């Protein structure tokens, strides 16, 4: 014999009570009481048959409750509810939108929950692939596939930082249930759901720069010597170089220390960055060594345009734009012909800019 929805509601009401997104069902000596505030329902002394009737009248509230009472981790539940804006929209509003599919962006991933035959299914794809037909994309259903998929960028280069904005295009994870959706996201952006959830709970444990470098050892131990009690300007530069939204989709929440915030913006990422990552530490090791050098004064002779061209080249490399500059676009200072001309004119056979020797002390 199949259990009716009324019987399922009754059993849940008797054990723990029901309180989910506006649906409240309680059991007492007179039977059951039900309130659905948005729908103007407030009835008591109900029988199981009455619960069946209300379940028929308000099926979305019941199916919504059934879905969100499924056993899953707190962080995953919060993430999946975020995906359908459960904190902002009423159940009927959500169900209305879920039929067409809602979408939110997590890093570079578009998360799309949709109702299919009354059940939530999830799809994930690169946000820039949102308008492409599914049959144009390489579709997957096994979350584990994501692990190898995100290893390289569109050019096949290894991605050392999972949260770099270089996610490859052309794939879709389809027909995922909630658990598989969260699992896939965790392969694409490890630990982001867990840390985002901790932050929402007010429990994110941030390790600031000073804490993070203090615990380094081995070849990275040298980084702590970069802090000389003379301010944190160098850490501003690190954050600007590595943690800008153009370099990482996490939102930097770590600062110099718990009393000193950096002057650089942490970015607009949905999920937080709780400590300087291994790439930051590895780069900082190099910068620590470079910072040990004494400054020198050099005298170069350049035209104003040549000076600006050097700056344009620096910008183009720093912004990852060098590959995009067209060969014929000689108006761009970082154009290859322009750079080659400058080198031919201003760099001697030993590679010295304007013929000025580096003249290292060491």
């Amino acid at each position, binding site marked *: 014999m199949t259990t009716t929805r009324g019987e399922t509601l009754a059993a849940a009401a008797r054990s723990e009570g029901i309180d989910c997104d506006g649906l409240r069902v309680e059991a007492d000596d007179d039977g059951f009481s039900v309130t659905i505030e948005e729908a103007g329902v407030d009835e008591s002394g109900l029988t199981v048959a009455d619960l069946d009737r209300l379940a028929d009248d308000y099926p979305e509230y019941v199916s919504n409750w059934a879905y969100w009472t499924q056993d899953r981790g707190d962080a995953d539940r919060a993430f999946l509810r975020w995906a359908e804006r459960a904190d902002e929209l009423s159940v009927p509003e959500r169900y209305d939108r879920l039929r067409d599919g809602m979408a939110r962006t997590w890093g570079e991933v578009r998360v799309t929950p949709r109702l299919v035959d009354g059940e939530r299914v999830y799809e994930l794809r690169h946000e820039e692939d949102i308008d492409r037909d599914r049959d144009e994309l390489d579709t997957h259903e096994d979350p584990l596939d994501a692990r*190898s998929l995100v290893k390289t960028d569109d050019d096949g280069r290894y991605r050392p930082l999972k949260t770099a904005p270089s996610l490859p295009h052309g794939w879709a994870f389809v027909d995922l249930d909630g658990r598989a959706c969260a699992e896939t996201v*965790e392969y694409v952006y*490890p*630990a982001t*759901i*867990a*840390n985002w959830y901790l932050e929402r709970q007010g429990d994110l444990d941030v390790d600031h720069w000073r804490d993070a470098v203090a615990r380094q*050892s*081995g070849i990275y131990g040298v980084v702590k010597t970069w802090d000389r009690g003379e301010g944190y300007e160098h850490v501003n530069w690190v954050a600007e170089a590595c943690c800008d939204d153009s370099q990482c989709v996490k939102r930097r929440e770590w600062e110099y220390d718990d009393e000193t915030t950096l002057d650089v913006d942490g970015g607009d990422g949905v999920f937080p960055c709780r400590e300087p990552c291994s790439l930051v530490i590895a780069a900082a090791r190099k910068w620590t060594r470079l910072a040990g050098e004494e400054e020198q004064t050099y005298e170069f002779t350049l035209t104003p345009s040549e000076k600006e061209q050097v700056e344009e080249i620096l910008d183009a490399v720093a912004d990852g734009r060098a590959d995009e500059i067209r060969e014929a676009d000689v108006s761009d200072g970082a154009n290859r012909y322009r750079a080659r001309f400058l080198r031919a004119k201003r760099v001697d056979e030993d590679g010295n800019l304007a013929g000025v020797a580096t003249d290292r002390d060491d």
Partner: protein
Amino acid sequence: MLRTVDSEEAYVVPLFISEGYFTEQVIPRELRLDFEVEQWDSDGTSADYTTLTPADLDKTVHYCGPVGTHDAMTDVIVRRAESVTGDSDVGDGFGLAVVGHGTKRNENSAKAIRYHTERIRERDRFDEVQNLYMDEDPEVDDVTDFFESDDVVVVPLFVADGYHTQEDIPEDMGLTDDYRTGWETPTGRGRRRGRRARPRGDASCERRLAARTRHVAETATPKGPTVGAHARPRLNGGF
């Protein structure tokens, strides 16, 4: 990453070859585990696990010794010699060199290699079994000096097939001056059996590796016994 684990209890298994700086200091520190090496009660190759609670989480963590010192790894090395020669009975007439990184900074690095070498030697399967190292004596550079056998299978015991296994070791052994050019077809005396395999980075590699090794170039050193360098064992192939 422990915070992404739903379970209340987790086993942490370092994918490292030996006990040392990373397994004893870096990993516990980064996982916020208050770990003292004495808790493993290890002789350098016998760490099993110890149970700890991370400082930032309410979970039980069993912190295990590295995979490289597990007894099963001995079989992985032998399996590698089998798959790469295409001979499931390989041993008679063959020498086996187990090559580790080694470091003068920590004796445990070599201990792990020596442990498996001795276990294989006890099986009396190969004519000779020797442990060799990149960064300490006996050095892999002199591999042929340590063997009398004409055929030597070299199995690097590393966790990944990368710089050391693909570039350093073949060059150190004199198989090639430049790993990018591969090895030349051997000339000179003796039977040439050396082969080189590069494992794939994905699962079910064993079968494919065996297939691939049948048509990889034969290799030899100009003097002395013939040497074939074989890539490191894979966990998924041998367990």
